[in-house]
Structures are given as structure tokens and as C-alpha cells.
């Protein structure tokens, strides 16, 4: 494309086979005072 360069393709997985809940709770990493969900790894993909 001439005018638009895609840096990252769609990444929000909304399929039925999601929501296993094996990922880390978002407050258990380094924040403890805010909610930062989008930097959590998907445990299914990490396997």
C-alpha cells in the first residue's frame, strides 16, 4: 500500500476458544497500584 503501512495485524483474539484464564493476574507483576492488562502474555501462546 502507498499510504498505509500496517505495523501490527489484528491481535485481539475474540474466538470462542479463549479465556482459559491461565494468564497472570495483572496486578501481580510490577504495578500493584494500576491496571495494566495489555502487557500480559497469553499463556496459551507462550506454551
Amino acid at each position, binding site marked *: 500500500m502507498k499510504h498505509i503501512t500496517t505495523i501490527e495485524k489484528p491481535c485481539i483474539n475474540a474466538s470462542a476458544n479463549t479465556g482459559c484464564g491461565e494468564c497472570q493476574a495483572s496486578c*501481580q507483576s510490577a504495578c500493584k497500584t494500576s491496571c495494566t492488562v*495489555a502487557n500480559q502474555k497469553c499463556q496459551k501462546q507462550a506454551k
Partner: protein
Amino acid sequence: MIHAFRFHEYYLILDVESGALHSVDEPAYAVVQAMEKGWDIFALPYPERQIREIAAEVEELRAAGSLCSPELTPPKGTAGGQVIKSMCLHVAHDCNLRCRYCFADTGEFHGPRGLMAPEVGKKALDFLIAHCGNRKHLEVDLFGGEPLLNMETVRTVVAYGRELEQKHGKQINFTITTNGVGLTDAIIDYLNAEMHNIVLSLDGRPEVHDAMRPTAGGKGSYDIALANMKKLVERRGDKEYYIRGTFTARNLDFTEDVKHLRNLGFEQLSLEPVVLPDDSPYAILEEHVARVLEEYETLADYVLQSRQKEDTWLNFFHFMIDLSGGPCLKKRIAGCGAGVEYVAVTPEGDIYPCHQFVGQEKMKMGSVLTGELDADIRRMFAACTLLDKPACRDCWCKYFCSGGCAANAYLYNGDIRQPYSRTCEFLKKRTELALGIYAAEHRK
């Protein structure tokens, strides 16, 4: 919905519902926004041929589901169901520091000082196992006050956790959050062996740290904390850690603190705005917001530049974003899981929705000693997803912050479902900058 924003020389467009990120030229930046708003794109000051080219590209991406995507259909239920998988264990409601901004009221959490008995810690893990269902990965954060004041319970809980892992086929990731003052060689080696992640509280420049984090005797804690933390990180190898600081109204030039921490050799950094009511002299007030947003831009420039060289590379927690292997939609809607998947346990064995609610009597939701768990409070938190927050529905940042921190919302607005706008401003700015850094590092 799209979100169009600038970062350095980039014109960026985030497709909110799909999470796709695009870098565009200046005419496309205007055309895509006009299309989204339903304006007449041919009224824009660009040649018609160029506008048609851009519109064709937009249509191609729309068809591929990566631009101007419709709102996602929310899946039913929260991530993985109603099990408890994470626990914050307050092994010590006591502290050897007297941090002036401590939300734990310098360790006491608005109650008596006290240490968790080893047996209470074991009961807490039994409670976790009893409520975790089929979940394999569990998390236990050893928290305080200062958890190193109660190493007996730390060691007992970890050893017991290892037994439970074997018995029940689970993996318990232990983490610890410490001010570092009580670290000895033996404790460092123990924590490095057992902890999945270690969060070390250090605020940055010595004068900043010491002004906020004095010892119980009134002296600064920087020197001893730093010496111990350096030793711990040097011996930690590739395992996870974070140097985690807090900034207040007294150090709004906090990029200097991040620089200081990086110059000390630390690579994994996090710095959080203080959480305090507005009547505190250290609180970040409405009048500070613009300055904080500007400072985040300064910090992003520093982080981007530093990451280009191996010897200055760093990871800043709030600029981390996972655009290829991040969480699924259910997780993004469910949020942090406080009160549902995540609970905090006091030295007495009382259960609260999260560590920030500890000591607020209305939010006490049970006890690991009796096994009691208040279904109403749990339901209230289960009904605190992104979909339950009207203010978030039309916000472009919703899938990154999941509607924000319930404790923040409760502290400032008295309602866990009404996000605190000041925090929202910070989150949105950090997310834009994180996406900008990502774009700069991943440009084709």
C-alpha cells in the same frame, strides 16, 4: 472505532476493536479520521486522485478486519470462570520503613501491626487450592508491609506450596515485593532460587528516595536498599525482577529517576504515580496532570533512545505492550480480576478483594481460617468488567486498561465501576507512547 495520534514523525492509527496498528502518511491521517466521522473526504485539501487511493486502501483493510472494525461481540463470562488463581499474602503488617506515601499506612493497613503465622499462610494456600478449579498456573505474591520481616512464614509457605504443587499438579509462581533493607546474602540466594519475580522498591535519585522512604528511625534507606538490590540483581541471572518506584508531586521530573536507576545498571524498571487522597501533600493533583503527561513524553524519548543500544537498553513496565501475543478479549474485558480471581489475605487470615482494599471493613469478604467467602462482594466485583463501566464503552484505550483499577475508582469516586479520570489520562498517555515506541521499533 479508531484512535489517531502522533508520535515523533509518525502518524499512527489504532484500530480499537481489532488491535491493529497502522502508520500512515499525512493525507491518509486526515482521510481515515474523516471517514470515521462520516465527513465528506473530498472536502479535504488533497488531490481527489490521492483521496481515492487512500479510500481504496482503507476499504481493503476494512475488508480484512484491520481498520474501522465493528465493535466486538463480548464473550459470555469472565476469563476462565469464577475460580481464584492469584493471592496476595500479607505476611507482615509491619515495616522497617515509614514511607510517607504508603497506602498500607506504613505497614499497618489501618489496623494493628502484626505478622502472619506460618499456619495461617498454609491455610491461605489450602484455600487457594480449594478454589482454583482446573487452573494450573497459580500466583502467590508475598507482600506486606515488609515481607522480609517474616521470613519464617515466607519459607514455610513456599515449602508448603511446593508440596501442594506436587500433590495437585499445579504450578505456583511465587513473587515477593520488598523494600530491600532486610536482604542478606542468605535471603538473596533463597529468593533468587524460589521467586518467579522479585519487585524491589526503589524510587530513583537518593534525595527523592530518602525524602519519601525513611527508616523507622528517620534516616534515609537509599544506601542500604541499593547495595542489597544490586547484589540481588547481579546474582539473579535471567530471572524476572523489577525495580519499582513511586513518583509523587515532589518529583514530577521523574524521568531523571528512571535515568538514575538505569545508570545504576538496572534494566527492568517501573515507576508508578502515587495513590493518595488529594489532601496529602504528596498527592498528584489536577493541576499536575499536564506536567505529568509532558514528563511521560520526555520519558518515552529517553526510553526509545536507550533501547537502541545494548549497554543502555531498558524495559519500562508501563511502556510494555504486547501487540502480537497479548491477552484475549475475555481477559481484556475481565480486567485485573480483583475480588474474583485475585484476593488478598491479611496476617489474621481475612480475605479482601485486593491488597489495596485491605483494612476497609466494608470490603472484607471472608477468612481463609473458616473458608467463608462473601458471595455478594464477589458478585459485585464479577460485575465490574469493562462492559459494566459506561465511561469506558466509547474509550479507545478500553482494551489496554480494561477499565482501570477498581481500588483507584473506589478511593476517588466511591464506586468500583466509575474509573478515576486522572488515572485514565495517565493510562491513555502511556498507552499512546507505548504504541509509538512499538511503531518506531517495528517499522517495516
